[in-house]
């Protein structure tokens, strides 16, 4: 009995001793370390040669390449322009657009056509209302465009192209019959984008300006329908 008790107590003491050794660290909140080894380290530090290689941890430097912006769209168009009282004639021109947001873009247009003869001239025999130079119909305009109805156009099973309808409205000038008139334009178009750089357009536009060529001052509507191809830059 006595030996059993002694063994039990001894084993309890043995178990408790290592625990007691950590008591210091309970209150100082640091891992136990021998002061002797610290002293040794210090001695070694004094004797050791200076460190030759300093570890350098440099942060990786990333150079961000400039991301290309392709917001500019330039192109050509060809169509038919109906000049009020002067018949319908082919029209051709250039456009330049800048896409500001996914919804809005600015567009500048420069177009040219040639007016025919009015019915008055045709019926009146030799009467010439305008000279050949004055029959040249040149216009420019600055418009704001609004993209709506975005969608996709499908060609067969394999090809899908993004598309959008857009509305156009703006101001400009029309040089016709020896005078430049302030012109308001509005219209709508359909744009298909087969690739990142190319776009195809079908546009209908009305150009309204005041004219007093045939006696009384009146607002003339000059409707234009055209197809165009533009390139994104």
């Amino acid at each position: 009995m006595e030996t059993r008790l002694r063994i039990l107590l001894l084993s309890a003491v043995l178990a408790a001793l290592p625990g007691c050794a950590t008591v210091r660290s309970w209150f100082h909140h640091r891992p136990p370390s021998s002061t002797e080894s610290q002293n040794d380290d210090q001695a070694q530090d004094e004797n050791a040669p200076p460190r030759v290689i300093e570890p350098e941890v440099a942060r990786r430097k990333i150079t961000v390449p400039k991301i290309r912006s392709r917001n500019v769209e330039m192109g050509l168009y060809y169509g038919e322009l109906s000049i009020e009282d002067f018949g319908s004639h082919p029209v051709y021109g250039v456009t330049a657009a800048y896409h500001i947001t996914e919804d809005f873009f600015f567009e500048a247009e420069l177009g040219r056509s040639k007016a025919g003869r009015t019915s008055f001239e045709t019926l009146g025999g030799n009467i010439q209302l305008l000279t050949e130079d004055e029959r040249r119909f040149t216009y420019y305009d600055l418009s704001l465009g609004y993209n709506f109805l975005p969608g996709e156009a499908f060609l067969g099973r394999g090809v899908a192209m993004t598309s959008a309808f857009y509305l156009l409205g703006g101001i400009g000038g029309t040089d016709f019959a020896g005078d430049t008139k302030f012109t308001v334009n509005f219209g709508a178009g359909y744009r298909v984008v087969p690739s990142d750089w190319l776009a195809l357009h079908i546009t209908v536009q009305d150009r309204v300006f005041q004219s007093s060529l045939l006696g009384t001052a009146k607002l003339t509507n000059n409707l234009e329908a055209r197809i165009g191809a533009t390139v994104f830059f």
Partner: protein
Amino acid sequence: MARSTSTTPSTQRYRSTELLTAWSTRARHGALAGLALLTLLAPAVGSARGYLQLFVTQPYLELHTGPGRGYPVFHVVPRDASIDVLFRRTDWFKVRTEQGVEGWASQGDMQKLVLADGTRFKFDLGDRAGFTSHRYEMGIFAGQYGGATLISAFGSVSFNTQLALEGSVGNYLGKFSNGVTGDVGFAHVFAPEARWSPFLTIGLGLVHIEPKATLVQAADRTEQTAYVGGGVRYYLTRRFFLRAEYKAHYIFTKRNENEDADEWKLGFAFFF
């Protein structure tokens, strides 16, 4: 090793095969070295290509078929995958995945991506901060020039938030004359951070006057001008702002008397 010391023909054959294998291993090592070189060069080639590589940190990145919220999502890039940024159109970025799928990611989603060093991808957003500080401005105006109707366009380059070099062209259409104006000058913006920010302008220009043929003096003329003016900008939304402007033009004629013309205009402009 025994083979290399042997003198039998067969050994010779062996030796030749050993040579062959030696050559082949050397060739293989060469090819490996070449491959290693290629892989070393690959980043250089990548940088020459100039595409920015970004990493997806959000659960997924949606790719649309076109640059607009109305175009459908057709692909998602999972977290931790990388993408190459090909180019930008308005607020959308055309990107390519590791598998070669190309699509459009929105500005809002692109803001959540990180660069290779873990920092967030930052770029120019078309917002109010951009209105305060930007590089270029463009816009169109309608207004009056000396009593005639004016159609005008302008562009500007900013040196800082307050000082900009501006150029504008205009076409005026009046009862007595038509004409074209062009001028270049400086603009100073007060309180560029304010939604309503006033500015002053000063500069030089030219005006080409075409009197109407019905008048006696029918000769076209081009005169030098100088102007001083002021106006106000009003931030609308995104990249847009309104701009109202007045310019007092002094036209230096070749006659005894100089002329002046008042220009009032209101326009719609954007910055980028």
